[in-house]
């Protein structure tokens, strides 16, 4: 089933970590397997925040050797960064297996991502000037506490509570998905894409990489490719309704935009609240009420509806 939520403030940064946590916790019943956040803080043009992991959470249950292996993998990532001339300004380790680096780098992001992912267990969750992507097993409250998200300030963000259906319960298959290797693009999705393999093979032939077997990852890669070709986010969203088969509602964020698209059958829910100072979207109104407990005027976007808001 899965639950998705999005928030965008029109009057500057606020405590989006706290509000996204409240929204996603209210959607816990739609998917208790994993929770993910993609939030946008203050952009730093010459700096990137890189979120990556070197093991899955469940790997920790595999005995004592994994702890030694994780240390070795972290060192290997460090060596890769040094070799590429990446200046690590800050390194946080909220968990043993998932790390956050603030880096200064003026080279090729794709090369950076590819080389980090060559390390065993390595997977880039996101690289962005403003984007920080966090996902892990458990509900929103648990993930938020583990990664210290309650104090995160930003202008917009999206999140996801996952009920695993067609791929594993692990971080690799959790949402949101970063649009490798493109800076600051993330997606969350509720639905099922029926021409996933057809489109994935087409994109792979064009040189795109996929890390999971989750159909939602396709939307991130698909959008990033469209934006790279010069489309606007709105054009990409509209095109997706024609080109992507299945039932879906998805949210996508760039550095300063939040967009949504609903498929031609309107089979997946979305409730929209629009005000002068903010826009909130969620699979269920209870999630919006978690941050706006007073009576509000909401509506359901219709089939084939596409919307884009600016931060």
């Amino acid at each position, binding site marked *: 089933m899965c639950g998705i939520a999005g928030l965008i403030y029109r009057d500057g940064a606020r405590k989006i970590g706290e509000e996204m946590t409240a929204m996603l916790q209210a959607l816990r019943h739609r998917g208790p397997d994993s929770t993910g956040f993609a939030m946008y803080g203050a952009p730093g043009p010459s700096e990137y925040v890189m979120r990556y992991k070197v093991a899955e959470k469940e790997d920790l249950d595999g005995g004592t050797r994994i702890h030694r292996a994780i240390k070795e993998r972290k060192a290997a990532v460090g060596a890769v960064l040094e070799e590429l001339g990446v200046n690590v300004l800050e390194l946080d380790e909220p968990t043993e297996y998932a790390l956050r680096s603030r880096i200064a780098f003026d080279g090729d992001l794709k090369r950076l991502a590819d080389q980090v992912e060559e390390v065993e267990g390595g997977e880039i969750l996101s690289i962005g000037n403003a984007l920080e992507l966090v996902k892990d097993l458990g509900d929103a409250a648990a993930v938020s506490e583990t990664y210290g998200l309650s104090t995160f300030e930003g202008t917009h963000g999206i999140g996801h509570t996952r009920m695993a259906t067609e791929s594993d319960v692990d971080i690799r298959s959790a949402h949101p998905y970063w649009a490798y290797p493109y800076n600051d693009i993330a997606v969350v999705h509720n639905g099922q894409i029926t021409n996933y393999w057809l489109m994935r093979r087409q994109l792979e032939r064009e040189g795109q990489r996929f890390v999971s077997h989750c159909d939602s990852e396709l939307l991130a890669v698909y959008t990033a490719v469209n934006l790279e070709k010069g489309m606007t986010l709105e054009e990409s969203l509209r095109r997706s309704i024609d080109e992507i088969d299945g039932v879906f509602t998805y949210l996508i964020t760039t550095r300063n935009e939040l967009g949504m698209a609903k498929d031609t*059958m309107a089979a997946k829910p979305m409730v929209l609240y629009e005000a002068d100072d903010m826009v909130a979207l969620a699979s*269920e*109104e*209870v999630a919006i009420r978690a941050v706006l407990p007073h009576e509000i005027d909401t*509506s359901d976007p219709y089939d084939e509806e596409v919307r884009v808001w600016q931060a």
Partner: protein
Amino acid sequence: MAGMSESTSTQMGMHTESLTGRDIKTKFTLENEGGFAYHFARDVDFNRRAEIDCAELEPTEINRRIRELMDSGHGSIVIRNPGAKHSLIVGILNRMNIVVEGSLGYFGCGLLDGPTVRVSGRVGWSFGENMMAGVCVVEENAGSTFGAALRGGDLVCRGSVGSRTGIDQKGGSIIVGGDTGAFSGFMMQRGRIVVCGNAGKNLGDSMYDGTIYVGGDIRDLGVDAIQAELTDLDRGWLTRKLNMYELLPAQGVDHFTKIVAGKQLWSYDNLEPTEKKLVL
């Protein structure tokens, strides 16, 4: 079914085939009053009023409290701070008044038979699903599958509703003050849908029977849905019904488009009358 009502409903395009077999409709008489209520229905007093503050309560607890208040004879209940919670006010098989001050989530007011409900806010998906009798009025917007499998009563939304309104509708009336989304009236079998605003694509797709009236634009019709002539009976019914809920447009109802089933998809004609009754 009485000859007059059969003739009237047939003229209005609600159905064309003659139903045979045992008639489920019976005439109300004071002597047989008990036959029109469930044996377990509570004897409530409409003048006894109570309130439930839902702010800190789970849906199960809220529904339990409604029943406890009905047990103690309360016939008018005000639901405060519903907070868009799901599955509230379900399975009420009593005549009574319920006022919701706020919004409901998914599956609100499902499986009702008898109550009159007014919701001051909005409602989520599948509001009024399988309602058998009663009246529900929503003051703001509603989500998708509004009145799914409705069997009787009036389900009213003053705002706009989502997609698949009245899917699998089997009776009763759905009245929408604003617009409705795609696939409204999908596979409807009986009853009426009135949309004062615009209708999305595939209106009345694969409908078996029933009537849809649309005051605004129709994006397109679904498979086997066709336009029919608006008769004086239709105008009279629309005027009366929309007046009841203060939704009658200033210009009247002459501009409404009437949509019925083309009945080219039917396969019921091969069935025996008793089998036909079971299918419907």
